[in-house]
């Protein structure tokens, strides 16, 4: 496979009064799948479109395979792109759509057809080759779009929120398929999404973006377990915001002494600790200080909201089988597992953990 390395250096772009990209630096190793994750407006789609050549950057360098491609128009950058929706040509069948790039490159009809069929099989939709896009479901259309992008054997594969317009179940199914295909074909891939679960499941590395900059980039486990900033801790997964006190290299929260995430730079004194629900243990205890407020059954797991003295709320994640022991109003004891936590010096960020943005489990 002709997979290449991609490097974005100091990319900046301004739209009117909005700074969409603010000096973005990003590296993709050959064959790697990097997911750009962030809320809408963070610049992730802009970065992708600049790489594709559909937008101009104000400043910065774009290197593909060691060559500067800033002066190369979009149609010569040899990149495959899959859009969020509506990108299939409605007047062509699925097969003809996939053939489009090959026809352009003047491949012979027989070779073209064979390759197109091969790609449609790869994405699992070979049986529908002669259907028109209007006759295909959303998931099927995106498969065809993927086949079309891969048919031309691009150096880089660009995916712009390809699953966002699909139903939840189709999304999960297709997500695994995309990863399987990408590993099989081995193309360097940039995947943009606002769904953190998607990013964590798919990527070799996840880059969390905010306001045009990368807040953190690393393997999914690192980003989840060692978030570099409160924003990352908040955006990726759920976090409880609990009042605590920093001192002696640890933070004291709810009576437990928890280690700090490496590289934490918060002065001693009052702070807000971000604790994941799965690090919170809840046990029925008649002497316990907490009281069960509500519980949500989520299939294999359950989430329990506990009210603690001092108007503090904690969300804990437990095996759903334990729900029977923890009905509302039960007195409980709350323990925190000794996992490193992120700490934010800003006390005003304490808020109701039930209303955080982040994962939809």
């Amino acid at each position, binding site marked *: 496979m002709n997979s290449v390395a991609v490097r974005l250096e100091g990319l900046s772009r301004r739209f009117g009064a909005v700074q969409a990209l603010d000096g973005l630096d990003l590296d993709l190793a050959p064959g790697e799948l990097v997911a750009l994750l962030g809320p809408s407006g963070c610049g992730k789609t802009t970065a992708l479109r600049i790489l*594709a*050549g*559909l937008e101009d950057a104000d400043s910065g360098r774009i290197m593909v395979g060691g060559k500067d491609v800033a002066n190369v*128009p*979009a*149609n*010569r*950058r*040899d*990149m*495959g*792109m899959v*859009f969020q*929706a*509506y*990108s*299939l*040509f*409605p*007047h062509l069948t699925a097969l003809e759509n996939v053939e*489009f*790039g090959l026809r*352009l*490159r003047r491949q012979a009809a027989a070779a073209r057809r064979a390759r197109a069929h091969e790609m449609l099989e790869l994405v699992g939709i070979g049986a529908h080759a002669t259907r028109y896009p*209007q006759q295909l479901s959303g998931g099927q259309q995106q498969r065809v*779009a993927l086949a*079309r*992008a891969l048919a*031309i054997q691009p150096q880089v594969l*660009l995916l712009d929120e390809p699953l966002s317009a699909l139903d939840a179940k189709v999304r999960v199914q297709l997500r695994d398929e995309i990863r399987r295909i990408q590993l099989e074909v081995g193309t360097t891939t940039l995947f943009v999404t606002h769904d953190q679960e998607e990013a964590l499941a798919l990527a070799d590395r996840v880059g969390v973006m905010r306001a045009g900059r990368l807040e953190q980039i690393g393997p999914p486990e690192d980003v989840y377990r060692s978030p570099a900033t409160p924003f990352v801790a908040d955006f990726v997964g759920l976090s409880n915001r609990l009042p605590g006190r920093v001192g002696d290299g640890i933070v004291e929260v709810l009576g437990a002494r928890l280690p700090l995430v490496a590289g934490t730079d918060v002065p001693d004194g009052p702070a807000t600790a971000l604790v994941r629900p799965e690090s919170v243990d809840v046990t029925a205890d008649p002497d316990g200080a907490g009281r069960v407020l509500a519980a949500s059954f989520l299939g294999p797991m359950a989430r329990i909201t506990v009210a603690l003295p001092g108007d503090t709320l904690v969300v804990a994640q437990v095996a759903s089988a334990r729900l029977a022991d923890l009905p509302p109003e039960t007195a409980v004891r709350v323990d925190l597992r000794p996992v490193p936590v992120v700490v934010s010096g800003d006390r005003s960020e304490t808020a109701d953990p039930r209303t955080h943005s982040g994962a939809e489990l």
Partner: protein
Amino acid sequence: MTDRTTLLVDPAPTPTTPRRRGGRWFSRDLLGVVPFFLFVAVFLVIPTLVVVIGSFGGTGGGVTLDNLAALGDDYIVDAFLRSIALSAVTAMLGAIFGALLAYAVVTGRPDGVVRRAVTAACGVLAQFGGVTLAFAFIATLGLSGFVTVFLRDQVGIDIYSGGVWLFDLPGLVLVYTYFQIPLMVIVFLPALDGIRPQWREAAESLGGSTWYYWRRVAGPLLAPAFLGATLLLFANAFSAYATAAALVSQGSPIVPLQIRSALTSEVILGRENIGKAMALGMVVVVAVVMWLYAVLQRRTSRWLD
């Protein structure tokens, strides 16, 4: 604008009577549409029948094919040919320039001044009466019109040295274009709006140049809409009467004017129903064109909605 829920005021719930389901042909619901159908019957269906039946009516009241045969007369055939030529030429001119203008407008901001002004202007010019347009052109290109005088006095060109063409077929071509172009913009703009930007971007990322994109994607997608709109323009020009009536006072070069003379001038004995036969001929031509248009519309809406 009041909130929708506060509109549903009635506090006392009325017991719902079990409604008879299914389409019984004589359900009382039909009463609701009686006024409409009655009105249409009197003012649309009956006139149409008058025209159709009258075409086959002889002087004495019997059924005859004489009127239809008379359609083969030279002067009527000429009128039809000229009507068709006029409609075809102005349809093509209108289609090309109208599509160009529509494209120019659609590349700008959807809420911008240019688009709104152009759309409003086209709305007016496409619908508005032929008499005002005819007079506008008389003021421009008439014997003492602004442009005529300007060219004569300032540039030394007499545009009427070969005869006054404004009040004949060439003049009609020019004036008809004036409302054909706006009609094209109105009819073609929705199709252009239906072209999604992702298609162009997808074609580009797959390696296609702008020319390739137009040849293989936008062109084929817009072709049915373009052809359909051209047909509509043809039907529009073919049916037009007022402009020609106001411009042409002598002679009846095209079919609508022939009908005028059949209605207003002395009736030649035995040929009163010629006008109706000509009207029937017109309906047939327009109906065929409109049917083709409908077929093309279905294709367009499948792709571009």
